[in-house]
């Protein structure tokens, strides 16, 4: 990999959160502002067409990184560059819109990420019209139908409301919405952690198929090591706001470098442990 040509470049990303009281309380009660360091000095690169995963436990700062990657949150320090354009710098509205078009996000909770009062057709058409991907709402409608079929649903689902669908179907709708913007770079924040395993497999397979078909670049945020290993080419492990280790997926599990990574891998419940336990001394619990 040469130095300058990565699709996504993240450099020294840092963010702290203001946890101080409202200004009127500070004014009257005294006391200054207080901060919590959520993300410290995180740097990594993602190549085009690759899946890069960030894994970590709750409070590790992985979701904060995800939000900064797509510009939902601005970093205190550091930069995010996508295909040579900085998303953290000053940009005009049209430049911003052009950037937004290229990157989208899939959220954890498919029950909260779709507006419950809107029909599916309007939900998927919104980014196309807002980002001026299509010229007219008639084009948006036909494109919506195409996208719904692409994610394994039917065009007729356009007329229905989100509450009429299961969690997995809603996540498909959310994926269709991200694709509606013609995004090339999609940040997936725990896309399957609210779903059941059999549905999780459907969504993970769909994400892979779409990646191969459309050449998408993913950043996958997850707490689930098995999901991350299955999906990602490279994995970054986050702990207490820092990126402690980045390795190719298979290698990370063979030779983890950091103590925290070793502990994390060691605590994942394994299916094979049932056989190990069965063959060990304590076998028959019931007399």
């Amino acid at each position, binding site marked *: 990999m040469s130095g300058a040509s990565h699709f996504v470049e993240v450099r020294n990303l840092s963010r702290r959160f203001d946890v101080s009281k409202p200004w009127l309380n500070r004014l009257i009660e005294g006391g200054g502002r207080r901060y919590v360091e959520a993300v410290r000095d995180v740097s990594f690169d993602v190549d085009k067409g690759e899946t890069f995963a960030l894994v970590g*436990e*709750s409070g590790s700062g992985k979701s904060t990184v995800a939000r900064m990657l797509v510009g939902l949150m601005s970093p205190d320090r550091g930069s995010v560059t996508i295909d040579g354009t900085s998303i953290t710098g000053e940009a005009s509205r049209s430049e911003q819109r052009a950037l937004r078009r290229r990157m989208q996000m899939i959220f954890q909770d498919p029950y909260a990420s779709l507006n419950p009062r809107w029909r599916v057709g309007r939900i998927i058409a919104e980014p196309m019209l807002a980002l001026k991907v299509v010229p007219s709402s008639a084009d948006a409608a036909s494109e919506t139908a195409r996208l719904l079929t692409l994610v394994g649903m039917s065009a007729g689902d356009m007329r229905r409301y989100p509450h009429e669908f*299961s969690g*997995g*179907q809603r996540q498909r709708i959310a994926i269709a919405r991200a694709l509606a913007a013609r995004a090339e770079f999609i940040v997936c924040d725990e896309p399957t952690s609210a779903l*059941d*395993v*059999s*549905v*999780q*497999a*459907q969504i*993970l*397979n769909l994400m*892979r198929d779409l990646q191969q078909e459309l050449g998408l670049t993913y950043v996958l945020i997850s*707490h*689930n*090591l*098995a*999901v991350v*290993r*299955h*999906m990602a080419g490279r994995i970054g492990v986050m702990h207490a706001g820092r990126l402690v280790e980045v390795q190719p997926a*298979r290698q990370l*599990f063979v030779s983890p470098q950091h103590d925290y990574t070793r*502990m*994390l*891998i*060691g*605590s*994942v*419940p*394994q*299916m*094979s*442990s*049932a*056989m190990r*336990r*069965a*063959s060990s001394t*304590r076998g028959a*619990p*019931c*007399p």
Partner: protein
Amino acid sequence: MADPVLSVRDLRVEFPTRRDLLVGLDGVSFDIHQGEVLGFVGESGAGKSITGAAIMQQIAAPGRIAGGEIRLNGQRIDKLSRTGMERIRGRHIGMVFQDPLTSLNPLMTIGDHLTETIGVHLGLGRRAARDRAVSLLEEVGIPEPAERLRSYPHEFSGGQRQRIVIALALCAEPELVIADEPTTALDVSVQAQIIALIRRLCDTHGTAFMLITHDMGMIAETADRVAVMYAGRVVEIGRVADIVAHPAHPYTQGLIAAIPSLETDAERLRQIPGAMPSLSAIPDGCVFHPRCELADDLCRTRRPVLAGEGDHRTACHRTAQAEYAP
């Protein structure tokens, strides 16, 4: 074979609504023996939590137990009055829930929680109750238990809180503990500790555990036997090692194959098409047939019952053909 601690036969739970009658559980039967962990695994809506709630008689109205029987140490408990059930709860059956914060009163110290429960169930004096509280906390792995008695729930981490809830459930040395998704709200590293704790308590106290979870890995690590639930029915039950290695029901096979593994590589995960039916649209015949590749006319019309030799039983017409190839 000794009598089971808990014996459930043909349990049926109904939820009458304004429009129709929803059947939450249908024909659920199982036994739990002393010192055994019986895992209940299934996806959301499969009825595993309803099973736990039915045993505790905590099904939210208008839901009701409409049939079958539940026996604890041979005594029927499904027809008990409210006060009768209150005597069973805590004393004979302990409970651990997903979110430890909701099971603890934020205004009471940990010491108050424990000594109150011990006092009610065991009738010990204050000094003795306190001593027991300290030893329980020590057993579940809370450091400096005597000092921490004065702490409030919010002063503990999530994992420690779940340990305290487990200590509370064990206060009266119940014969059975029902744990509903005890580790779901916890991080992986803490999860592993709680699994180890449940295993250890089960061995040392001889307590029977009913472990409800959606996580097959958790079952594999913790349980002795497992009941796989789907749409309010037990579709397969048997020893964990048998079921993990040789799942017989097509649903169990699909469920296990759908889990990404840390040990094997797969380009694509095996997926079960569709989703579990909602309670208002339970199909006729085998409840799994609309998603099953092997379904034939018999599956579409007749309900299979749990059958098989020995421990490992499956509710499937096509079990013989449905061998799992890893």
